[in-house]
């Protein structure tokens, strides 16, 4: 019989942590289940109205302060514990380790397109090396989609017009299902992909065989675009600020804004700054950059971002 995707054990450290939270809640739930259902059935049986004692009067009990306090305090403490445990693990789920390799995913009705950082791309199948963290940077070109890796117990919605992300560090080689979990129309249930985890040697061989010499990687195309659109007139790559801030080492750095807020320069920030430059202006600069909305296509923006990441 075909195994269920979620039966895969030991696929990643995070999946194991999620299973622990699940188990923790199962234990608490089972205790309460037997406690409440047991009392319910026991009372219903024990105090059933028997023939002959219909007229018997019942005790006039309207409450019990101690009991009522206990069953507020104890469940409160337990749900707080569940919340805290869930939160701790959620941080693991959301925080990709530094140095994770990015793979861009563009979802559309009804397929996933994977784009590797070296220019390769594939439909509905993504290959990743064993034991290395991989971050999927997700966006959609039409409606909402989902990105669910049941074996790894994680999922993330894919939203048009913004990037969301999801990371895994597979510890087990094999082929794993990817499901669309956000309803997206007629083909929703057939929108499935595979993540193939290969050990390092296999993966290298595969990469070598796949790479087409004439295909420029996205960052290279991005470099061309940046030159063509004159970005470098204002933004340097040498670490010196000109009209705009320098690109050097910008990706992943903390940036202070003119309104006093601060953020980490990531894909979403780059995208926003290209499309809507005045939304967030870096401290010390004037909001003079023109928008590239309508000029640059989604693909081109992704390529520029790929290049930006290489400017170190």
């Amino acid at each position, binding site marked *: *019989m*075909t195994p*269920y*995707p979620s*039966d895969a054990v030991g696929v990643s450290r995070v999946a194991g942590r*999620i299973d622990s939270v699940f188990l923790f*809640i199962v234990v608490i*739930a089972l205790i*309460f*289940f037997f406690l*409440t*259902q047991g009392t*319910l059935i026991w*009372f*219903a049986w024990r*105090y059933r*109205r028997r023939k002959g*004692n219909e007229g018997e009067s*019942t*005790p*006039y*009990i*309207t409450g019990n302060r101690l*009991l009522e306090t206990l*069953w507020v305090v104890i*469940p*409160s403490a337990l*749900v707080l514990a*569940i*919340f805290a*445990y*869930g*939160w*701790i693990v*959620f941080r693991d*789920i959301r925080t990709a380790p530094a140095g994770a390799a990015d793979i861009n995913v563009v979802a559309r009705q009804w397929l996933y397109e994977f784009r590797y950082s070296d220019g390769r791309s594939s439909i509905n199948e993504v290959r990743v090396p064993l034991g290395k963290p991989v971050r999927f940077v997700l966006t959609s070109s*039409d409606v909402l989609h*989902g990105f*669910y890796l*049941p*074996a790894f117990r*994680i*999922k993330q*919605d894919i939203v*048009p*017009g913004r990037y969301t992300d999801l990371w895994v560090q597979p510890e087990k080689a094999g082929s794993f*299902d990817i*499901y*669309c*979990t*956000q*309803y*997206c*129309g*007629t*083909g*929703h*249930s*057939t929108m499935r992909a595979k993540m193939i985890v290969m050990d390092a040697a296999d993966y290298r061989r595969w990469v070598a065989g796949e790479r087409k010499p004439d295909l420029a990687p996205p960052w290279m195309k991005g470099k061309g675009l940046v030159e063509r659109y004159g970005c470098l007139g204002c933004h340097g790559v040498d670490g010196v600020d000109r009209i705009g801030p320098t690109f050097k080492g910008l990706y992943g750095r903390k940036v202070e804004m003119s309104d006093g807020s601060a953020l980490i320069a990531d894909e979403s920030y780059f995208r926003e700054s290209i499309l*809507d430059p005045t939304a967030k202006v870096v401290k010390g600069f004037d909001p003079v950059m023109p928008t590239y909305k309508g000029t640059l296509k989604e693909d081109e923006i992704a390529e520029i971002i790929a290049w930006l990441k290489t400017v170190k």
Partner: protein
Amino acid sequence: MADGISGASGTGRGYLAETGLRSWAFSLDHKRIGVMYLYTTMFFFLVGGLFAELLRLKLMTPGPGFVSDKTYNVFFTLHGALMIFLFIIPAIPSALGNFFIPMMVGAHDVAFPRLNLAGYWIFLAGIVVVIASLVRPMDTGWTFYTPYSAKSGAAVTLLSFGLFLVGMSSILTGLNFIITIHTQRAPGMTWSRMPLFIWGMYATSVIQVLATPVIGMTFILLAAERLFGVGFFDPAKGGDPLLFQHFFWFYSHPVVYVMILPAMGIISEIIPVFSRKPIFGYKAIAYSSMAIALAGFLVWGHHMFVSGMSSVAAVIFSLLTFSVAVPTGVKVFNWIATLYRGSISFESPMLYALMFIFLFIIGGLTGPFLGSLGTNVQLHDTYFVVAHFHYTMMGGTVMGWLAGLHYWFPKMTGRMLSEKLARRAAVLILIGFNVTFFTMFILGYKGMPRRWAEYPVQYQTMHIIATVGSWVLAAGIIVMVWNFTRSLYRGEAAPGNPWGALTLEWQTASPPPVENFEVIPTVTEWPYSFGRKGAGDA
């Protein structure tokens, strides 16, 4: 419990005496309006159930089945939308609430009878528009998430308008109930003497009045999006698809309490009556209804943990979500404690009430799996969620509704139900329900996403089990409907107070006279004084 009560005889046709279409369609009598709501919502319960059976049938095979994927999507959309908007939201408030709130507070009618009738007609108009919109297959899911709903070829604009009208009716009903409870209570009916069903309905009405306008606005914006391309939810125009989800759940989460709180109110009435014991922790139950209603407004974000919302917001919403668990637990503990040392009899209303508690506990205990961030990421949008909300909504609300129908059937119709048929139906429903929906917890844990027409073959066995369970469930519903129909014509005549209950609606004839009470009763005691020196030991 009350002085000045008369006419508890049990003969005559009471408010049902007048016949003819006009006597119903233009009646200002809250009881008749309640009955009209009851028939309407029950019709959609059966239609929604039919779609459930159809989609379960499709799911017996993993590949393309007897219908196309597109048709399957229509099935689950209609099952969800009809059940939610035309059955479960109005089922208890508009039908049973309308019939019993004025009777239980000791009034002749609601505060605004004309508004009440207008509410029913708006509801009906909304239904007509909704049905008209279905000429083109509706395939958006009941959640209407943008951008899909803004692009779908279905008649979403028309449907939005229909649901806007349904929502308006819901607002008017809730508004009417709040004012009725404030101003129409009989002399001596203080807030602390109000039956718990009234407390539940009060909390419900507050949610209806404050949350429904937001979904109304959401539907207006969705329609504007389709008609004019206003772009609020369209990223290409600078809009935000997540804004729709925030608006949608700001209504649709509180509204699950519109569904469950009245059912909890019914259970709080039935348990003491059939245990011959005062309700345990009256104040705790009453206040927890209000607490749930208020907390319910703060937790909508837990539907969006993996939507792309910020992690900080997710953490806050998760914490707030758990605050709903405690008052809900309190109610369950109180009901069970009420049984302690009672003298419990198992007529059909009690049977359904106990089924409610049993199933609702399972629904409640599976909530923390979804409220907890760590496990939510795994289980969101899988069958685990489907199972969880069916345990709370069908195992909870529908069982509470059925308990209420069996409890009040004699009062509404003047006839008793057949206990034998009611028991058979209850057994079938209990077995069928658990077989269908417990299986879905496992399916969801194993990774089966919801709203899938086709699925990998390893899930098939469990889908077949769930489908077979749904047949048993359907058989139970059929037996129950047969019982209602048969008893309406051939049931024994009901006495005024067949269960020996102490709330006011039982202290008048079955069916009640047009004016409910010949003389407005004066209330001297709370309605759960069972067990005290023979009081209520009738």
